[in-house]
């Protein structure tokens, strides 16, 4: 087990190098010269050349990339080209907002999605089953910016229950978390339902029924345990997309999080900021995937890690 974990962590290294190299090259090849963007349209040509030299933009891309990664390995994520703030400091300032948003939305997906999926499966073709189907279609087809706006108009303007924007208290996070959760929630309900139904048809469930087990015991002991495996995978994938999914939500609800930091940096070609966020996120995604695999072994004793 320990050996397996170490092996997986070592495998993260080439993955992270691959991702960062890819992003670095893309960012460097994107049209738009950072030096010109920083200095503005009134800068002289000499000033732009000097700024390019200062930022090291005249070196070949690979040289720049390795210089950057050398800094990262020493814990130095550099400073923003544009605002000159410390990238890691800024990231740490903002990550609590994004994490809170992500965790709340995942909590909603798990605590609402799984029970609803189970109910839909148990009462297959019942009223609840059809209702969840319709709601699932509805929620997953609504784009986040629109859902967020409608939620703001209804809950903030008409009812006045929640504040529309900001990140000052937990109350500010409820609507954004629901918005972020809505699309995945629908998928989660349907996935849970489907995998429960699949397991429900298997022989050992029929055997359990035949020997006279109570229905609730069958569902909890036999169906749920086996049906949850694909569900855990999808939750892992959802956690991994916290930052990507939050880009729209953070913008609609004006939450100062990591996603808005990154998207803003991409627009102004602020390479150190984009890279800093990407490095941390790719490590995070790698670790979450590892945890999901470990969780597999816990839920399903047939899964043997490392053998």
């Amino acid at each position, binding site marked *: 087990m320990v050996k397996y974990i170490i092996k997986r962590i070592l495998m993260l290294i080439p993955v992270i190098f691959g991702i960062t190299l890819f992003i670095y090259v893309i960012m460097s090849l*994107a*049209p*738009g*010269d950072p030096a*010109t*963007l920083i*200095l*503005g*349209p*009134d*800068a*002289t*040509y000499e*000033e732009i050349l000097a700024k390019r030299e200062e930022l090291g933009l005249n070196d070949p891309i690979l040289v720049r990339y390795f210089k950057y990664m050398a800094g990262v390995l020493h814990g130095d994520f550099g400073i923003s080209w*544009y*605002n*000159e*703030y410390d990238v890691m400091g*800024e990231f740490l*300032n*903002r990550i*609590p907002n994004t994490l*809170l948003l992500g*965790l*709340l939305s*995942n*909590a909603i997906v*798990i*605590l609402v999605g799984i029970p609803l999926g189970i109910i839909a499966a148990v009462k297959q073709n019942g009223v609840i089953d059809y209702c969840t189907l319709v709601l699932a279609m509805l929620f997953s087809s609504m784009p986040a*910016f629109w859902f967020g*706006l409608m939620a*703001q108009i209804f809950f*903030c*303007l008409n009812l*006045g229950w929640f*504040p*529309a*924007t*900001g*990140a*000052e*208290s*937990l109350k500010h*996070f409820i609507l954004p978390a629901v918005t972020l959760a809505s699309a995945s929630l629908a998928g989660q309900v349907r996935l849970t339902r489907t995998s429960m139904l699949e397991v429900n048809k298997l022989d050992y469930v029929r055997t359990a029924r035949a020997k006279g087990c109570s229905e609730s015991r069958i569902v909890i*002991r036999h169906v749920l345990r086996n049906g949850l495996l694909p569900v855990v995978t999808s939750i892992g994938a959802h956690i991994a997309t916290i930052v990507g999914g939050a880009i729209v939500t953070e*913008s*609609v*609800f*004006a939450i*100062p999080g990591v996603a*808005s*930091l990154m998207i*803003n940096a991409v*627009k*102004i*070609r602020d390479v150190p900021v984009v890279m800093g966020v990407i490095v941390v996120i790719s490590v995070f995604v790698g670790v979450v995937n590892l945890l999901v695999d470990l*969780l597999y072994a*816990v*839920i399903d*004793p047939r899964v043997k890690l490392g053998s």
Partner: protein
Amino acid sequence: MKKKVLLAGVLSACMILSLAGCGSGGSDTGTTAAAAGGQTEAQASDDGGGAEAEGGETKDSVVVACAAEPNAFYPIHTSLGTNMDEVPILHNVYESLIKLGPDNTHEPLLAESWEISDDGCTYTLYLRDDVYFHNGDHMTAADVEYTLDIAGHSSAGLAQLANYEDTEVIDDYTVAIHLSAPYGPFLNALCGRYALIVDKALAEEIGEDAYNEAPVGTGPYKFVSYTSGDSVVLEANEDYWGGAPSIKHVTFRVMTDTNTQMVSLENGDVDVLINANISSLTRLNNENIKWDTKDASSIDNLKINCSKGPGTDINFRKAIQCGINKEDVNLGVYEGMATLGDIQIAPGFSGRPDPGTYKVVEYDPEKAKEYLAASNYNGEEFKIVTVSGTRDESAAQIIQGQLIELGINCTVSAVDSASYAATVDNGTGEFGAALRFSGVSVLDADGLFYQYHSDSVLTPGKYDAGVTTPELDELLMAARVEQDEDTRKDLYAQACDYITDNAYGCTIYYEVNAVAYNAALNGVVPRSLTGLYFFNDWNW
């Protein structure tokens, strides 16, 4: 059974984690306490239906929304990037020498009065003697000299304080600013961000980076805090020389989404949108919100690439010039609220020639077809480059439809602003035409200089779109240094005619600024420059 317990454990761990997240989130936002306070107050008063907060106390805070994150808080920082959204903050923490009134007149601010020498090259300013910086330092001529020398010798500063040479300290409260040649809009420049006076002693002691972290000016508001991505908080300067402001707390909230801005204004989270979306406002039905517009400082001009592609043919350019129905573009993009354009000088700019003194090309699709037939256009692609997600993109799409109807194979390429700059301004010139608003912060006809004079356009690293000629250079330079207002207007009329005759582009409209605010707030007047809002003019 044991495994079920484990599963339950995992699920509850998720819950605990999310709760722990709440805890840290809460404490992290402690620094924005002032913002939160202001906001609850705003909501309370909104529920109460007026400016009175609960308990009958008058509200004294204001929340203003801005669309992008402010970057620099030290107006003359030499290496930071700048943007438009920090300017209103700068103008309330710092003060310029002269104040630009709402109707673009000059009012005294740090300078009580001023004189201009007969040759137009020396501006003598008499400063107030009762002005103190927020840290208690006395503001004197030395601070003015220090600030202008740095600003006037930087390339960004020179774009406003053009022809600046140096500042001479005559006594503690008198300075003489020397120019190398007269510059028509120099008084306007002395109202701008590069004439915001900083504390020389402090700047020399702590340096520009530390100054940028904790800005100190002479203005009616003191800088309290900046929470990146979220807000900037200001508080009233009770010792302000012009009297303590009535609004005690101002919070600048970053809200990138215009719909979000409107919702926040309607529910009272935000009191003022200084750059509001006009389409949303025209559909607004809420008596608690007022809004007003004013001609902005920016001009939407379709710039045709005259060096490459079909635009090299003047008949093709003329076809575009009279083939665009500007009224339709205005209706589609601005609900008809913008002022239609004819020359690249916005109404209200100094130096703008009077109507009737310059040539105007009317919309005439038949004539456009004739021009097109006379040109050697052979159906090749004519690409309009613009910035995605902006009003210009919508305008470009409407223009595309009109040009296709004429028989031009027009396409629109909407890219982000960095790519736009790399294509149009500094790059390869792979475009048929480019559409993006351009602002003139000195509010003067001299904006043409930066579009058409070879000193500005033909510098290395910039794309040459083929719009400079010695004749135009001469006209623009003569107009720039001319002191007689009528002669100046005449020179600009000639320059505009030259540009119109050569069909270098097509001016679509002059943009308008809209300010929307809580109806209970008094003193909010729309401005041509969104940076020039003075919060001490406002009260509940």
